[in-house]
């Protein structure tokens, strides 16, 4: 398959940019951050995005979705990265939808997918328990009790965790933390008895939560896939999340770069535009080249996910590693080239730096993924 967008995907991208520029520009993120409403995104706007077909972008038409696939999801995520739009798109429509669509049973698909596609159900994915991404370290316990399980433990860094209606939770049904065997995925009602959520304000002003599970009861019907076989599924879901974040990071990097390139043509010092200085030109040309590499890795990951979610883990690690590293470099260079105004809250460039910081950390930073690639290559 050529590494280019199809006409349909390009149209989706153009439509996404138009919509987001109008409805969810950077000023909308500022309004969320500075307003009294504590939620990390606007439910009304999410309903509108659902009408655009985004909430069900991965979901098949039989369940009310648009069936655009991962490349389609990626172009929307990239545009959201450009405009720093806050929404549950990644957690609900990319990760949870991928989990249920590809690994859920008929009953789960029928119960949840149409609601996700309609924008009526917001899902969050609860994986990490420590400060660094480590899915195999899952310790949250799921103990057999009658026909069901009892969940006890805690999750952190859960995107949209405070506002979600449902949680997909990675829990340990066997083995010890550090082992890939013995992990099981559950769908848990966010309002269930024993679930307590702490909203956490983070640098990028998105909605996050720390969630404690105190003897939360779930049934066998809430298991996604098979008991003890959740790690394989989690890998697929994380691949989707990593590629989606890669796309968002790529979009954010492209926009931070473009803002900076414009600024260099405007800002004058020593009687000339500062963009005429070779010291800055070479750094910009280098960033341009690095961004080109990130874009290639992200597009390939999305295409491979459309081929086979279960086999795309290495390329999704590449996309997350490269996009994370490039976006981070771009944001810090962009800030430096903006000079003093870059330090002011009034300028948008700082918002890009903060979002990129959080997104590159989530589901594995560049070092985590470079390490995975090294292990895959046998060294």
């Amino acid at each position: 398959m050529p590494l280019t967008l199809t006409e349909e995907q390009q149209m989706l991208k153009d439509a996404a940019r138009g919509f987001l520029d109008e409805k969810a520009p950077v000023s909308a993120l500022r309004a969320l951050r500075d307003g009294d409403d504590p939620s990390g995104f606007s439910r009304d706007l999410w309903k509108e995005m659902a009408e655009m077909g985004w909430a069900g972008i991965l979901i098949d038409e039989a369940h009310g979705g648009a069936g655009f696939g991962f490349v389609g999801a990626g172009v929307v995520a990239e545009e959201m990265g450009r405009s720093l739009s806050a929404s549950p798109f990644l957690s609900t429509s990319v990760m949870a939808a991928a989990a249920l669509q590809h690994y859920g049973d008929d009953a789960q698909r029928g119960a949840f997918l149409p609601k996700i596609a309609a924008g009526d159900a917001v899902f969050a994915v609860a994986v990490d328990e420590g400060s660094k991404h480590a899915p195999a370290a899952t310790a949250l316990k799921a103990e057999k009790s009658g026909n069901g399980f009892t969940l006890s433990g805690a999750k952190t860094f859960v995107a949209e965790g405070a506002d979600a209606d449902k949680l997909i939770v990675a829990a340990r049904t066997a083995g010890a933390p550090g082992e890939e065997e013995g992990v099981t995925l559950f769908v848990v009602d966010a309002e269930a008895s024993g679930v307590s959520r702490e909203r956490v304000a983070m640098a990028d002003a998105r909605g996050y939560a720390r969630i404690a599970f105190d003897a939360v009861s779930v049934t066998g019907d809430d298991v996604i896939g098979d008991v003890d076989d959740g790690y394989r599924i989690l890998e697929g879901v994380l691949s989707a999340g990593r590629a989606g974040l890669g796309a968002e990071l790529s979009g954010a990097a492209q926009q931070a770069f473009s803002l900076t390139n414009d600024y260099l043509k405007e800002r004058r010092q020593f009687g000339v535009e500062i963009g005429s200085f070779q010291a800055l030109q070479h750094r910009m040309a280098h960033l341009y080249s690095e961004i080109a590499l990130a874009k290639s890795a992200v597009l390939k990951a999305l295409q491979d996910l459309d081929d086979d979610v279960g086999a795309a883990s290495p390329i999704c690690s590449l996309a997350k590693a490269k996009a994370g590293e490039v976006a981070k470099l771009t944001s810090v260079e962009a800030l430096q080239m903006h000079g003093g105004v870059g330090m002011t809250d009034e300028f948008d460039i700082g918002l890009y730096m903060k979002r990129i910081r959080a997104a590159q950390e989530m589901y594995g930073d560049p070092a985590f993924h470079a390490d995975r690639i090294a292990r895959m290559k046998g060294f």
Partner: protein
Amino acid sequence: MTDLEQFRTETKSWLEENCPGEMRDGAAREEDICWGGKRWAFQSEAQKVWLERMAQKGWTAPQWPAAYGGGGLSKAEAKVLKQEMARINARSPLESFGLWMLGPALLKYGTHEQKEMFLPPIVRGEVRWCQGYSEPNAGSDLASLQCKCERIEEDGDAHWRINGQKVWTSYADQSDWIFVLVRTDNTGSKHQGVSFILVDMEQPGVTARPIKLISGKSPFCETFFDDATAPMEYAPGVSSIVGDIDRGWDVAKYLLTHEREMIGGGGGGLLGGDGLGETAARHIGVGADGRLADPMLRTKIAQWEVDAWAFMLTLDRVKDEARAGAGVGANSSMLKYMGTELNKRRCELMMDATGADGLEWEGARSNDGAVAKAWARSKGNSIEGGTSEVQLNIIAKRILELPGG
């Protein structure tokens, strides 16, 4: 059967019948390449026969027009030919600067008569060409070149007289002809007054001397022109100058872009050869967890793997975009810059991975210092064909449209 399938079937059986067994070893080794030319000593009868048979069909230059000796194949047919040759592991019958560089320049800027005279001998491997671009004082600033070319009239007979020096002329000591950028006018801007001229090297006024590099022997030469001459026309209608007089910079620029794409595209070899991690593990060992015993080096290699993989995908993406009509344009500078910098990094890491063994310069144990010499040679990657800094300038000006300079 479609025409293309028909072509594949025919090509397959023709290759089966005509490619000598000895020529089916892929020939990855430098010394097995057939460069052709008047002074070429064929390595074997098979090498000679293989060249003759392929040239007869025009398949040494598959996509050149048949009228000029080429194969006249479409892009799709040329791809089939390449695939079928790869299938039987056939060697390339001929490599040359004529095929890579002069041919494309003539096809774009030459007259019908120039193409008729110069292209067929390139296809047949009868004439070996080299390129005279850089000068001791015109490297990155190529347009400031000063090799002088004057029109001389003696006894009513006009010819060109050339004086000056070229450097980095690859294989000049083994070539028959040279295409040279010369200055025919000094009065205008430096890009004006440059001409692209074709010169026969078999004359007393042209001398080529090999250059020894920090990596040892090299194909590079310096070439001196002392009252060398070229006629105004080699035959009726065959000017010795390609394109218009004083407008050779257009031809040169076209070829430089072409060259950059080849060098950047050469990054295709980046992931080949010994894996860095594997080599490092062999020299340094691995810990109980299966990870390389040197964690700092492991990190650097892993980061290189990430970058190299993303670069390979970028080569694919830029190619796919070009196929879809977007054109490569100034992105060839991006590929050249990233590809060569990555290769330099790879060579540094290979030296780190092999330690003292990698420093060996001679002898069978080190394959004649292969690692160290590749490392030393790689430093030239980001200098030849336009330095990294020049590529960054091109990106800044043409793609980012930054002001000044």
